[in-house]
């Protein structure tokens, strides 16, 4: 579904800052892949290249066989800063419907999709409320509903749970797993939280520090039914967690490559 080959990006001309270098990986249809890397390693740059928001200086991104030039049609993004990503002058339902307006859908169908998306994130009755009336976790759920309503082939999430408190984070992680099952979405999620990446993912891709490249591609054999308490206590989880942690540590201890 998604193929990233040799992706690299340098900001500001020939002598600018090299954010990512030689990133290559694939995401299969229906997978939930997590990308985890140290802070400032270029994860956001990578996501912006994949989503077509910026054009990478080297390498290519292919989505469903077509090269990504500019933002592709079958994509939806959830950003970390939900309070600034939602439009405060629109109601929750209008926010969710906003991207649907020019996709050739009738009013009734837009309304139905929005209701379905809101229901899947647990906000069934909140359509008429405004973002300022909702808590942070609920606002991020609206942003997720807005992305799901588009029925994207690929859902990109840029550290979506980094700005909420720990307990809300667990709720939202489980919500994502449920919604993903319901809509059968392919998800690429970027995070700095190792535990979160293993809990959510079918595969974890570990990035080096800046300039980022993929240093490991680990399958996560934790099965389909995950639970915050039992899954996180399992042998497999603990093993994977220490492996990823070691990879991230080892990389940052090595001298920078020229």
């Amino acid at each position, binding site marked *: 579904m998604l193929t990233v080959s040799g992706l690299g990006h340098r900001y500001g001309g020939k002598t600018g800052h090299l954010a990512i270098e030689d990133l290559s990986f694939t995401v299969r249809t229906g997978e939930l892949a997590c990308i985890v890397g140290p802070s400032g390693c270029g994860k956001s740059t990578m996501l*912006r290249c994949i*989503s077509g*928001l910026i054009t990478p200086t080297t390498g290519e991104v292919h989505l469903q066989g077509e090269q990504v030039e500019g*933002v592709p*049609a079958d*994509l*939806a*993004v959830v*950003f970390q*800063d939900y309070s*600034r*990503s939602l*439009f*405060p*002058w*629109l109601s929750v339902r209008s926010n969710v419907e*906003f*991207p649907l*307006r*020019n996709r050739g859908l009738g009013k009734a169908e837009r309304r139905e999709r929005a209701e379905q998306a809101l229901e899947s994130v647990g906000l069934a009755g909140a359509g008429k409320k*405004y*973002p*300022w*009336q*909702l*808590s942070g976790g609920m606002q991020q759920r609206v942003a997720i509903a807005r992305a799901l309503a*588009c029925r994207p082939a690929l859902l990109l999430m840029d550290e979506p749970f980094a700005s909420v408190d720990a307990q809300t984070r667990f709720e939202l992680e489980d919500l994502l797993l449920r919604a993903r099952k319901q809509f059968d979405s392919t998800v690429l999620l970027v995070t700095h939280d190792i535990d979160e990446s293993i809990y959510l993912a079918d595969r974890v891709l570990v990035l080096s520090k800046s300039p980022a490249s993929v240093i490991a591609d680990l399958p996560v054999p934790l099965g389909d039914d995950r639970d915050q308490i039992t899954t996180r206590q399992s042998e497999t989880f603990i093993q994977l967690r220490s492996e990823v942690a070691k990879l991230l540590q080892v990389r940052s201890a090595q001298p920078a490559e020229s």
Partner: protein
Amino acid sequence: MRMHGFLYRWAVFLGAVVVWELVTRAAQSPFFPPPTEIVDAAVQKWFSGPAESLFLTEEVHQDLFASMGRLAAGWLLAVVLGVGVGALLGRWSNAMDYCGPLLAFLRATPAPVLIPVFLVLLGISTQMQISVIVFGVIWPILLNTVDGVRSVDQIKVDTARAFRIPRGQWVFGVVLPAALPKIFAGLRVSLSLSLVLMVVSELVGSTNGIGYRLMYDQRQFDLPDMWAGIVLLGVLGYVLNTVLLAVERRALNWQQTSPAERKG
């Protein structure tokens, strides 16, 4: 309880009026009639007409409506032009680099000073007065619109691009609503300025209107009438501003930030 709050807020104002009455009665100057005389004159001027026209005199129609008409036309024209041009300039990223100095210069030029210019160009006419108003008040609206349009935050830009929102929906559905708080600030400034310019342009270049009447009454030494006109202008300014504030509050009611501030 509501009466109570009302009295509190207006207590100082009423106190000032009382002081004004006492001071002017004591001074006995013909140039400063006491408020009671002014009210008398006002009633005579405006409310002593026939019952069919709600007791309003001919003067109300001639002067008040004429002035308000010019004010409305001038201000609304300035709003449409100011927001339109401001939005265009704001969207074109380098525009302000080129236009900035010119706009700053034009804004700094006091409009009343240019009235002779407009008099020569347009003569004593309604067009002259409306042009003066538009020229004077378009700058705060325009510059505030540019500012508002340019300061849509980057995350909203990214969100709209990521969802491939088309340009029309982007401008009218995101940029303008996001810029509305700053635009309203410009509107409030421009409304009070409009009132001033309306009066000033009528003082020198008109055959009717509140400003004209003010000048006329002054020349006739009809001072209570003149003061009635002055008070009327104060009342008008207050009412217009209050109405605009109410509209703004309604249009921007999504600006609350925390649920704790919400009542109920």
